[in-house]
């Protein structure tokens, strides 16, 4: 098992190196540059441009800039934002917990709803429940997130006034961030009503972010269940006279979950992409919005180091997903 983890970790090194190259190159391939964008409509005189470029190190050949970047990375320096002038790592650490909190809630909703819906749809194949839930999943999967988020805000926050419009907690609560997770910090703060406020702020954005993964998970669970239920061992289990609950819960579901877990793992990337829009609509101070702003401002250090950090996290999550296979499917563990 340890060897399995170590091998996987070793694979990460060349992948990370590749990502630095892609991230570094990708943002520089985009037209436009940070100095021009900062100058805006006014423009910037060529001498001044050269001066600023030199100050930011952009006058050096690109390969030198890349090597310098790698060297700094090895020394733990991820660079400073061109816009805020603050260290990228400190900005990332400030914003990341907000994205994790939102992402976790979304994936919990997506799994908690998606798996049972998929299972029931598979068992009652062809029923009205199957028809409606799978049509719903198709709609959910094709939903434009921005529009969907705004629609929910207008309906639940505007018309019904059940939920707050945006933000992470009511402005009347004010306490220092300890973990960066608002649900936990609001409990630690001990302020009455803070936790409830944080939770109510989390509902709409989580539902919006969960929409696409939920649809994918529900459909994946349904098809995996259908496949498994036709297998010999399920038929045998039934023939043995086991209760339907045991047949489905133990024999079928456990095997069907393997592709579903892969799907859930893959949804992490989808979640990060969805977070960009969700965070913008709900004024959620996370890394999705941060990355988009940085790309549009050509904030090179933030984009290249931010992508690297995100990639590292996605890979670690995938590694954890790989490890959980072992728990569910002993065959992989033994290999």
């Amino acid at each position, binding site marked *: 098992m340890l060897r399995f983890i170590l091998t996987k970790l070793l694979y990460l090194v060349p992948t990370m190196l590749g990502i630095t190259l892609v991230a570094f190159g990708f943002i520089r391939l*985009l*037209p*436009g*540059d940070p100095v*021009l*964008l*900062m*100058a*805006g*409509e*006014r*423009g*910037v*005189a*060529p001498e*001044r*441009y050269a001066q*600023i470029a030199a*100050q*930011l190190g952009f006058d050096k050949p690109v390969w030198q800039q890349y090597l310098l970047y790698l060297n700094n990375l090895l020394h733990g320096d991820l660079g*400073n934002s*061109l*816009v*805020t*002038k*603050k*260290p990228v*790592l*400190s*900005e990332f*650490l*400030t*914003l990341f917990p907000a994205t994790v909190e939102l992402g976790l809630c979304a994936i919990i909703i997506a799994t908690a709803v998606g798996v049972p819906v998929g299972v029931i749809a598979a068992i009652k194949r062809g029923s009205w429940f199957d028809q409606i839930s799978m049509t719903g999943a198709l709609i959910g999967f094709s939903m434009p997130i921005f529009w969907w988020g*705004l629609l929910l*805000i*207008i309906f639940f*926050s*505007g018309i019904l*006034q059940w939920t*707050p*419009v*945006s*933000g*992470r907690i009511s*402005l*009347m609560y*004010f*306490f*220092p*961030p*300890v973990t960066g997770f608002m649900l936990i910090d609001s409990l630690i703060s001990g302020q009455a009503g803070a936790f409830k406020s944080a939770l109510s702020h989390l509902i709409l954005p989580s539902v919006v972010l969960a929409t696409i993964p939920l649809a994918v998970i529900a459909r994946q669970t349904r098809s995996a269940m259908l496949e498994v239920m036709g297998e010999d061992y399920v038929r045998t289990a039934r023939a043995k006279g086991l209760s339907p609950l045991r047949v489905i819960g133990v024999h079928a579901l456990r095997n069907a979950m393997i592709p579903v877990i892969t799907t859930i793992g893959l949804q992490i990337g989808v979640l990060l992409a969805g977070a960009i829009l969700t965070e*913008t*609509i*709900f*004024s959620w*101070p*996370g890394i999705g*919005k*941060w990355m988009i702003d940085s790309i549009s401002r*050509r904030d090179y250090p933030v984009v290249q180091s931010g992508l690297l950090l995100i990639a590292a996290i996605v890979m670690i999550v995938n590694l954890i997903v790989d490890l959980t296979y072992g728990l569910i499917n002993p065959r992989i563990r033994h290999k």
Partner: protein
Amino acid sequence: MSIFSPRILAVSALALMAATPLSAKTFVYCSEGSPEGFDPAPYTSGTTFDASGHAVYNRLVQFKPGTTEIEPALAESWDVSEDGLTYTFHLRKGVKFHSNDKFTPSRDFDADDVIFTFMRQADAKDPWHEYIPGITYEYYSSMEMDKLIKSIEKVDDNTVKFTLNHPEAPFLANIAMPFVSILSKEYADTLDKAGTREDLNNVPIGTGPFKFVAYQKDAVIRYQKNADYWGPAPKIDDLVFAITPDASVRLQKLKANECQLMPYPSPADIADIKADPNLKLDEQAGLNVGYLAYNTTVAPFDKPEVRKALNMAIDKKALVDAVYQGDAVVAKNPIPPTMWGYNDAIEADKYDPAAAKAALEAAGVKDLSMEVWAMPVQRPYMPNARRAAELIQSDFAKVGVKVDIVSYEWGEYLKKSMEEGRKGAVILGWTGDNGDPDNFLSVLLSCAAATPGGANRAYWCNKDFSDLLAKAKASSDHAERVKLYEEAQVIFKKEEPWATLAHSTQYVPMRKNVTGFVQSPLGDYTFENVDLTE
């Protein structure tokens, strides 16, 4: 330190908050973006200036609320020498800087603070010039303060003398701008000793109406009323910026009373806001212009008669209705009508496709095909450039001119549109920095700006026009300046390097119970006079 500083900051802020209960009068502003930092000098965005320069700081002089007139601020009065080269500022006495748990000022604001504020930007050898690696002072350089100011001297604790290299009338307007907000020298020294110089940009200390309390990145900025404020005391106790980037969401928050005032509503929402009984809408003609700049160095656009003919072909009224949803006035001059020096005697281009066609034929232009550039971003002066370009395309088609619409990524657009020999006409615009006509005319249309890196996208260099601007800039006689700018607009209209399109209206939606908010023609959001009635 750097990683944990937000936490320490918040803890210290909490200590500060503990002293003042939250039951106080709180005003929430749904701001549109995050400040880049809290030191206004290195930055150029209005969002940053609202959060730093306007809330926390003051300048030597300031714009009178709702106008672009200059009035005393930290300088109580000033004398200008006969030759216009020396400005002596008499500083206000007894002005206190804010304090926080790490800094308590031992003295009042004085001349050292003024010198510190300017010299750190002016002098590359100043120990505070690059207190954060990679920091630059873009406004100081683009307003050419480096070329203008020869020296700054402390005459005594409450008197500072500025000597200029040449007389410049807009000087006072320039130093009313947020980039020269007065910082505390003593605070900088304290940070230096503590080894936390970057806090000059993170934890601002100023003399302004509100004290900074805490900033949670991309989420919330909190301020508290400055009880020792030298000016009229703010009427609200706590000021909160709730950062809300999406315009529709800002409106929903306003409707839900999660905030009381918001900037930049989406043009499509204006009717809805007007219909809401809980909201009111403040509107004002913006200090801006949207235009289409021909390249006057490329045939046939080098001929004024061709440019005039094309301008006659554009149905500007229809464009204002479609692109600005009617929330703009048709522009006939390059400066907006709310600006002093505006020449109202000038006659607007007539919309007359038949005459335009005849004029083009008379100028020998046949089968003309051209590019119209549509900017890829929305700006208050141009909410939908693509739509504007399409309208111009169909208007030009009626006079036999074929138009291809092109667009580039914003940075590329700005760069390519300034390339010499550029083909086609460019849609762009401008919003004033300081209310001086020079800030429009010189920046956008002078010969000096018709160079790479300038902003004269018509590449139009008219010596008479530029001479008038130079003369006006050096004159300190306001009536004379008005006359010179009026003459300059006559030349502009004779030559028409642009099709002037529109001056858009600025809207500020707020709750009905908000009083005292005065819109700034410069688009600043300031809250020292704001109050909430029950």
